[in-house]
């Protein structure tokens, strides 16, 4: 099932005939505390709601997708957790130490939204297309076997990143937490529709030019392992978002006027535009230097991890 937000705060199910059927009234029964709680409430009560959602979607009467103004289904998740470099990127390096950072949950922008570049003197602003997992229930200390039970669904995500800000040698990742830097959409696809999330295709296009193009089969640590580890650190909640990292081979700049299309096969695709009131310009196309730098910097192997040449 595809769960979407559209037309200023309505919640809908995207039906097979590519219309979106309004089901806002069903979630309102749970009396969400505020607009940010509507989707988490739907996720929490999804088991109970599912038959009626199916029935409504089958009954039709929805708005054609082309006429609906889609928005990000989650407006402010309780956490956005991002994996640091979690793809092999064509190397045969040993398994890297798992590391992550938290991205501001205030940063969400959705389909048709605008990435606003701040006046900060960043070296460049990059796109990072990713697959993200939406958590379905409160979870702590998940075993590998039960990890996928905690998943509600998946979205396409773009982790917009300002480079070169902050204190040297620390990498605070704060340059990823500007408002509007967490692109989330086009809807949440429930996990039953994605039999294998490790064989999906992630692409990012800028003004129609292909930049990123990779498979989730290249992930160093697959989703169940990520969930097991992260839930050993922090309690996960319905609507928490876990971004699985990007393949940096294909990163490029985003700048004023750009249309950025983020797409994951089996999930969907959405566009945002970029606005920079300073109209700064960077080289267009793929930033190969950035890709090479990431591979060179990947020198944090897990003790005893088997690898290839270790280049």
């Amino acid at each position, binding site marked *: 099932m595809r769960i979407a937000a559209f037309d200023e705060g309505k919640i809908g199910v995207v039906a097979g005939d590519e219309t979106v059927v309004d089901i806002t009234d069903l979630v309102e029964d749970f009396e969400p505390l505020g607009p940010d709680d509507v989707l988490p409430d739907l996720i929490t009560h999804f088991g109970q709601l599912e038959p009626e959602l199916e029935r409504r979607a089958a009954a039709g009467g929805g708005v054609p997708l082309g006429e609906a103004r889609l928005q990000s289904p989650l407006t402010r998740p*309780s956490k956005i957790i991002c994996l640091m470099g979690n793809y092999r990127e064509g190397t045969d390096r040993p398994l890297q130490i798992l*590391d992550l950072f938290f991205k501001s949950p205030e940063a969400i922008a959705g389909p048709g939204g605008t990435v606003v570049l701040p006046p900060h003197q960043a070296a460049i602003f990059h796109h990072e297309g990713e697959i993200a997992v939406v958590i379905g229930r409160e979870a702590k200390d998940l075993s590998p076997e039960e990890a996928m039970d905690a998943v509600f669904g998946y979205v396409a995500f773009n982790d917009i990143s300002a480079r070169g800000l902050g*204190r040297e040698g620390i990498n*605070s990742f704060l340059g990823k937490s500007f*408002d509007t830097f967490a692109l989330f959409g086009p809807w949440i696809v429930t996990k039953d529709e994605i039999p294998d999330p490790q064989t999906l295709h992630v692409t990012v296009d800028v003004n129609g030019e292909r930049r990123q193009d990779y498979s989730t089969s290249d992930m160093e640590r697959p989703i169940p392992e990520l969930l097991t580890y992260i839930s050993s650190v922090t309690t996960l909640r319905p609507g928490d978002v876990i971004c699985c990292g990007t393949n940096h081979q294909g990163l490029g700049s985003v700048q004023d006027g750009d249309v950025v299309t983020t797409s994951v096969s089996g999930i969907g695709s959405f566009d945002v535009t970029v606005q920079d009131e300073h109209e700064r310009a960077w080289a267009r196309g793929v930033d190969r230097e950035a890709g090479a730098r990431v591979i060179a910097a990947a020198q944090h192997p897990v003790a005893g991890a088997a690898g290839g040449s270790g280049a």
Partner: protein
Amino acid sequence: MRLVLTRDDRIGVARGGGMVDVSGAFDDIRYRTGADRMPRVLAALAERRGRVEELAASGATELMPALQAPVPRPPKLIAAFGNYREGSDRERQTQDMFLESPDSVIGPGGTVVLPNHPATIFHHEAELALVIGRRSKDLPADERAIAALAGYSCAIDVSARGMGRIGPSRIGKSFDTFTPLGPAIVTPDEVPDAQNLRVTLSVNGEMRQDYTTSDMEYGVPEILAFISAYMTLAPGDVILCGTNHQGLGALQDGDRVEMSIEGIGDLAVSVNDPQRREWPRGIDAEMAARQ
């Protein structure tokens, strides 16, 4: 005013050694738990201040009940990287901050549980905490920024070292129970100078950290201006101002940790380590020298 949240989700104002229940000022604000109640209460506090004070003055004082953290689950938990000169005369470092898991917060009398992860050591970091009171973006780096605050509190940024890839690990500071916070939110009118507060932390009665907020590299208004240039701040967000690393030490099973900020409050928690690991006691001089 000192605002507290009881374990049964009531809002109180501290008076003498006790508390007056002022929940009545917020009865129309729907909530499910104390965790989602407090950000909404803080958002409404400025306009309802008169009513809250009325209730605090006229209500009966009860013995101080068991408390939760004044914000049990902040919308955002933000921490400043090393923000004290620590006796050096160095140039100010580039300002920087990061986000921690907001699910790491516990309250007064809580228990820090050391996880079964191979950290090299678990440190305490006593810090002045800022609690946001209204939605704010692009605050000025002067006294006007203080208007964005609901108030101040005490926090311990418990830190597992030796985790992750680069620099101070976000994972190591984000374990559940790793951010004791409280006991109260002290409104800015009760804190005439936030840059002149003594911060102390002792473990089992032995003094470890003892420093003053006058040594901060970037003061409270500069912290608020910096972070609000990145992200919209929301009521209930908590910002940790950084610690002075001269005086850090190990936390281990059975420890009793007491921290205090002059004029703000006293916060005590205990430590539980199911693995019963041991580290040298006392101040970690090696860590202090690294800063």
